[in-house]
């Protein structure tokens, strides 16, 4: 009996908090499919999706490469302060995205330390570069967090074996280290992508939110909602696409999980 009621509590909680709002949104989308479709196929919406995908793709590539490098330094490096580095990597998780955006504004603003770019016509703020920077910032921890424990678990023996067999450092990395951590990397990439697509706060501060230019998908949802004037179909439609993407990512993640290695 106790176990049954526990299960009931858990399912009820998840339904109320997670499933409920999403189902409601899907419901509303279905009520006005034409209106939703019009909003989704609007050139500015398509441009927003494109921008989101591009920005996310860049963030994924950058944070995968540097994430693996950081994880290697944290686990294997014999430098001082790697504990500090390890803690520092989590900063984006604890820092509000709005503050991230605001700090970028300050740094790259006309009188910021890196204001040189903005002053000389290399637009960072209110342009794609700042959106990319903000997204990279908020998605930085995921690959590192996934790879660090796996690297620890794998140890260095396989790499040492490869070295005695003649493999160079680079060959060892590609043939041994990377295959050993591949599931952690893939998992980290998936989380990075999901977080990147969904990023709102930091991007809202730095992007300028120009429809068709610097408006990402989440910003477009916010716009559609703010300026709905009673017609919420566009907001529902775009939200639906984003939510569907998230669900697809989630399913992909479950399918990718190797059976033995995850809890």
């Amino acid at each position, binding site marked *: 009996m106790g176990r049954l009621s526990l299960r009931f509590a858990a399912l009820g909680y998840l339904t109320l908090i997670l499933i409920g709002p999403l189902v409601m949104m899907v419901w509303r989308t279905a009520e006005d499919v034409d209106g939703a479709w019009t909003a989704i196929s609007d050139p500015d919406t398509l441009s927003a999706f494109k921008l989101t995908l591009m920005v996310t793709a860049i963030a994924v590539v950058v944070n995968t490469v540097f994430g693996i490098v950081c994880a290697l330094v944290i686990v294997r490096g014999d430098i001082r302060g790697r504990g500090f580095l390890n803690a520092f990597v989590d900063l984006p998780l604890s820092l509000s995205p709005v503050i991230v955006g605001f700090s970028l504004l300050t740094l790259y603003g006309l009188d910021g330390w890196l204001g040189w770019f903005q002053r000389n016509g290399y637009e960072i703020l209110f342009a794609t570069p700042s959106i990319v920077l903000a997204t990279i910032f908020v998605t930085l921890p995921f690959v590192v967090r996934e790879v660090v424990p796996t690297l620890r678990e794998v140890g260095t*023996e*396989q790499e*040492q*074996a*490869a*070295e*005695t*067999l*003649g*493999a*160079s450092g680079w*060959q060892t990395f590609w*043939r*041994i280290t990377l*295959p*050993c951590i*591949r599931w952690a990397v893939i998992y980290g990439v998936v989380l990075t992508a999901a977080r990147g697509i969904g990023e709102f706060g930091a991007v809202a501060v730095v992007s300028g939110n120009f429809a068709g230019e610097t408006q990402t998908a989440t910003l477009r949802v916010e716009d559609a909602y703010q300026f709905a004037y009673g017609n919420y179909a566009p907001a529902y439609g775009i939200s639906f696409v984003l939510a569907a993407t998230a669900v697809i990512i989630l399913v992909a993640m479950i399918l990718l999980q190797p059976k033995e290695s995850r809890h």
Partner: protein
Amino acid sequence: MSISIRRITKRFDDFVALDDVSVEVARGSLTALLGPSGSGKSTLLRIVAGLETADEGTVFIDEKNVTGRPPQERGVGFVFQHYAAFKHMTVYDNVAFGLKIRKRPKAEIAERVAQLLKLVQLEGLAKRYPSQLSGGQRQRMGLARALAIDPTVLLLDEPFGALDARVRAELREWLRRLHDETHTTTVIVTHDQEEAMEVADNVAVMSNGRIEQVGAPREVYEEPANEFVMTFVGQAHRVGDGFVRPHDLEVTLEPNGSTREVMIDRVVHLGFNVRVDLVDRDGARLSVQTTRDRAELLELVAGQIIYVRPTRHTTFT
């Protein structure tokens, strides 16, 4: 000499792992580095392989000074205690790894791998992954992988330490036969004196980062250089001012001039042999090894008072 280790010293912070160690390993020999854990034997082996660097001293392999050279350039085959199997590769790819790195033609690799798998009795398992193998099979794969590169020397770091007693005994025997076929200069690190005695032509006994004695198994056992070797290689009890091995004590039921009175604590039947655990008057423990027939003849039972006399006694100055 195939391996020449000269005056190696290695420290980890304040701990001296190796203290001015020199060892020579003859070409084609099978040498055991024998010692308790923490004696520095694994560190020494890893320094020979280039997986660890010495603070002082030099290492020669095949008359070439390899000190400071990375493991890739040393041409050593290394076998790890916990196998270090490439988990994401099949048995075939594990064994082929060194050859692929050397960019050998595919046909040559296939032929060599097949030959090695036969040698280590893993034919038919080429497509398995390490997780589908038993511990003994994994270690044989590790050996084939190390042998694939035709190493000048083969280094084994407690290779059978993670296996159960029976598989360990089998592999030990098999390793000896393999060595007699291939004649690859081999160094095996072990803390198991029985393993060292059974497998090696030459044993270097280590403790606390120093070499205590180097010699043939029989030499190390029969003529130990010091107290440590006497007690570590085989059992020995302190009797009076020297040491005696359990099979060098004679048991009698009656006292005579030179015997000691002891009480039987326990009689342990080990098949052909019987070990009799004893306590003397001062509470000191020792044991006697004797044959089953003799134990039965004397009708030895726990609680009985008997008399022992060393037939061979070793003292160190």
